[in-house]
């Protein structure tokens, strides 16, 4: 039986329940509202912008010792002024990506703290003063003409050239490797009307050497195939042999493939067995690349067969040459490394084995941009010096005040004195030979950078694209401009093509930007020496 008191109690219970339910709904709704509007509240109550909550307080500052420790795992520690402020972010995070994290190099060091350290001290922009040159042309008289490849499918990109009598006739031919069109071209510069024609197809020929590899009396070509036009870690690189046949054609034989980017090769009898081996600079990219020798193991009278033997597992070897560094009668190897090493290493031949190297030169920091090396006797003392250029802008499109030409003058076995000859923005290659007939080797250099990038940094009209360092007295060079405002010369060559006793100048053309030139653009510009 239900009493009045019971009814009253029930009513109170029901009322209380309803209130509780309403409260729960209200609280839940309020929570939902607050959760969905959390960013608003953060923004309203914070002094920093609403997106900045993670960065409150900033990263823990890095100490100089920590910084040196982190950098020196892979390279010399760069100073903040080697790059402008806005480029450090890309650079530091690229370092983290390339391998820092996986190698546990960074430890407790916060990349943001490192970035902060560099940003605070870096200049807003790099100061690029004009190159000091002499206004006069000295005694040199040059006339210019262009050599074309009428059948070019796309604008050329000349990566290397040879001036050599490859066909065995009277005058030397010009052999050109076009890395964009995947072609080896041959021309007869002695005939002013002649143009280039394709003699072989190789996907991305970066460098060529002329050599009679099979000792059949005909000149062959050995070619480094980069495997891709642009930089990438892949396995498309190869070493190719263009074997000259009886009828003057060239038969392509792959000597080694499945390699990463192969940038240079140098045939030489490394192990003294009378057969030509090939030193290979497998540049690679970030995770690939090495320096190795293809050892010729063929039996006498048999076609060459090669077996690879590693020399150095570092990537970044762009140029390679052989010379007897320690004067023991065996060919040693000289290799230019860019990437993080930025150095010239000499590998000493110990009976066909290379167990040690000497650092012949090291640039002060990894942003140096090494771009070219030639072993040449600059001072006429019958010792091979090393001519270096650094002006590679591929990584960051930046011209830098430290781009230039350096001469490592050999004073004795593996003893080099460094001479900073001149600044030259975007310099890509230099060669030395006497071009004004004064008996002293001059140096001619060319530069390459993307026009759009140059225009934003220096006056394109004033951009020195071909420079002549006139050696007017032993060791004294006067810089003179041969050409300016055309920044598309990946390589050049000095040689006497017309047998008139003076060296002429061949400048290769090529643009990274395929859309900036016609397929019919000049492949090679010839500066013919008219010296008396």
């Amino acid at each position, binding site marked *: 039986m239900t009493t009045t008191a019971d009814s009253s109690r029930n009513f109170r219970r029901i009322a209380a329940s309803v209130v509780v339910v309403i409260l729960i709904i209200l609280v839940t709704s309020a929570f939902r509202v607050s959760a969905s509007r959390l*960013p608003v509240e953060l923004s309203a109550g914070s002094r920093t*912008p609403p997106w900045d909550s993670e*960065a409150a307080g900033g990263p823990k500052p890095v100490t100089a010792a920590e910084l040196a420790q982190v950098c020196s795992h892979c390279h010399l520690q760069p100073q903040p002024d080697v790059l402008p402020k806005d480029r450090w*972010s890309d650079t530091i995070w690229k370092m*983290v990506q390339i391998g820092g994290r*996986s190698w546990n190099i960074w430890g407790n060091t916060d990349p943001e703290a490192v970035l902060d350290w560099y940003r605070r001290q870096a200049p807003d922009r790099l100061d690029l003063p004009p190159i000091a040159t002499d206004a006069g042309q000295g005694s040199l008289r040059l006339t210019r003409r262009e050599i074309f490849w009428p059948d070019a*499918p796309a604008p050329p990109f000349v990566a290397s050239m040879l001036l050599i009598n490859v066909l065995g006739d009277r005058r030397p031919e010009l052999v050109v490797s076009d890395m964009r069109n995947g072609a080896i071209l041959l021309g007869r510069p002695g005939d002013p009307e002649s143009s280039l024609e394709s003699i072989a197809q190789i996907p991305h020929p970066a460098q060529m050497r002329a050599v009679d590899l099979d000792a059949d009396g005909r000149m062959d070509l050995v070619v480094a195939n980069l495997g891709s036009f642009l930089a990438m870690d*892949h396995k498309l690189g190869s070493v190719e042999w263009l074997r000259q046949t009886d009828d003057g054609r060239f038969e392509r034989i792959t000597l080694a493939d499945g390699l990463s980017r192969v940038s240079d090769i140098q045939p030489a009898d490394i192990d003294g067995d009378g057969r030509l081996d090939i030193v290979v600079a497998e540049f690679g990219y970030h995770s690939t690349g090495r320096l190795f020798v293809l050892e010729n193991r063929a039996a006498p009278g048999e076609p060459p067969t090669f077996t690879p033997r590693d020399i150095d597992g570092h990537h970044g070897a762009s140029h390679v040459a052989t010379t007897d560094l320690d004067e023991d009668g065996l060919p040693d190897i000289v290799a230019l490394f860019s990437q993080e090493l930025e150095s010239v290493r000499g590998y000493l031949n110990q009976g066909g084995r290379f167990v040690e190297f000497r650092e012949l030169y090291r640039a002060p920091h990894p942003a140096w941009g090494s771009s070219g090396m030639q072993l040449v006797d600059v001072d006429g003392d019958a010792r091979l010096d090393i001519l270096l250029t650094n002006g590679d802008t591929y990584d960051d499109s930046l011209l830098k005040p430290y781009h230039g030409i350096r001469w490592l003058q050999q004073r004795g076995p593996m003893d080099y004195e460094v001479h900073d000859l001149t600044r030259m923005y975007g310099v890509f290659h230099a060669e030395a030979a006497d071009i004004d007939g004064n008996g002293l080797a001059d140096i001619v250099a060319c530069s390459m950078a993307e026009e759009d990038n140059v225009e934003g940094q220096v006056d394109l009209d004033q951009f020195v694209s071909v420079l002549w360092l006139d050696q007017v007295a032993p060791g004294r060079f006067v810089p003179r401009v041969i050409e300016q405002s055309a920044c598309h010369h990946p390589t050049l060559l000095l040689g006497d093509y017309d047998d008139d006793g003076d060296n002429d100048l061949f400048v290769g053309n090529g643009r990274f930007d395929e*859309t900036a030139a016609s397929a019919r653009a000049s492949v090679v510009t010839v500066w013919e020496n008219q010296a008396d």
Partner: protein
Amino acid sequence: MASAVKTVLIPRRLLLGVSLGIVSLGIVAAGVLLRPGLVEYRIWQARRALARHDARTALSRLDLAESLNPKSGATQFWMARAHRRLGQMDRAHERLARASRLGYPAEALDLEAMLALAQAGRMPLSDPRLLARMMNPGDDAPELYEAAVQGSLRSFRLDDARSLLDAWEGDQADSPQPHMYRGLVLSHQGAWPEAADSFGRALALAPWRNDVRLHLARALRESRDYRRALGLYRQYLVGEADDPDALFGLGMCLDSLGKSQEARETYVRVLTLKPDHDEARLAIGKLDSTHGRAAEAIAWLEPAVARSPHEQDLRLAYAWALQIVGRPAREHFEFAARAQAASATVKHLVRRVVDNPRDVELRYAIGAMLLQYGRPQEGVVWLESVLQIQPDHQRARDALAAHEAGRAVPKRDALAPPRTAH
């Protein structure tokens, strides 16, 4: 004590029946009288949501309005606008047609149809109808600006977009929209730090805008400001916990900051939400290859490569995983190298389009290359932009037709980019 009042007894059943009848009549009357009011209320809610740039909420309110009165022209009109804002043009046109049948004012419908064309990039700024409206926009100014800027962006008429944005900022200084769209223009050009500045300004004006927050997070991530981007992604995910793209962005930041295990877990979560998120598959594939799990990497990458064979990064990561386990990889390396070169050429061509926005050959070359080596949907947009400028451009038509039919795209010679004569 006897009562002095005589009580009149009414039967309880009768009383209950009358009461129920009155209540029922009241409800019916209220329903009849209030329904138009409720529809209006829902439309008002939807318009408020649209003003907040929340088209999804607007649509849900309009769905309610439609269920109350399917014959409301106004409901159909605002549904068209919400669909247009979401880029759902077919649905927008369908709703406009219904609104027209229901007698909604023709002037409003014409404007909405014009906005749809402009937004799709099919009506250039020089079109007299659009110009006339832009000269005297009235209350429609924000809609007109937004649609015209979106259209300019879609057809890569960046000069038009920039001049519209200058005018819009001048007209509506406190609106976040022009800043957000300027950020999008800058993103298109790869100017990520500058884009982040613009998105930051938009977010400061409208801190509740999660869509802007997501744009800002992406711009900061692309600018390698991973820590700030990470914070923003986390804020965004408070309200949108299951957004796969935001989760992917969060994973990328974690990855870049060295938290690869946490990043991998995030990518896996992305794939549970959206199994065809190929960027997440690529990220896991790269992590697994790097950490000695090439076979697992192949398993993650394989479906993505099958689905998106034109993606350079996917092919390269797949090639490396195959190479590591000793399977043939050359075909994939070669594609990646070709795609990389094409991508560089496209960048150069895009730079030229900025200076020559009406050069159809540049646009065609970009579109054709992207069909073969980039994201095909981007290629389609570029080819469509060719036809907007020159409707009879036969190669663009052919390329689009071939793409739609699933045939091969143009041959190498047809892909050769236009070049400067030298």
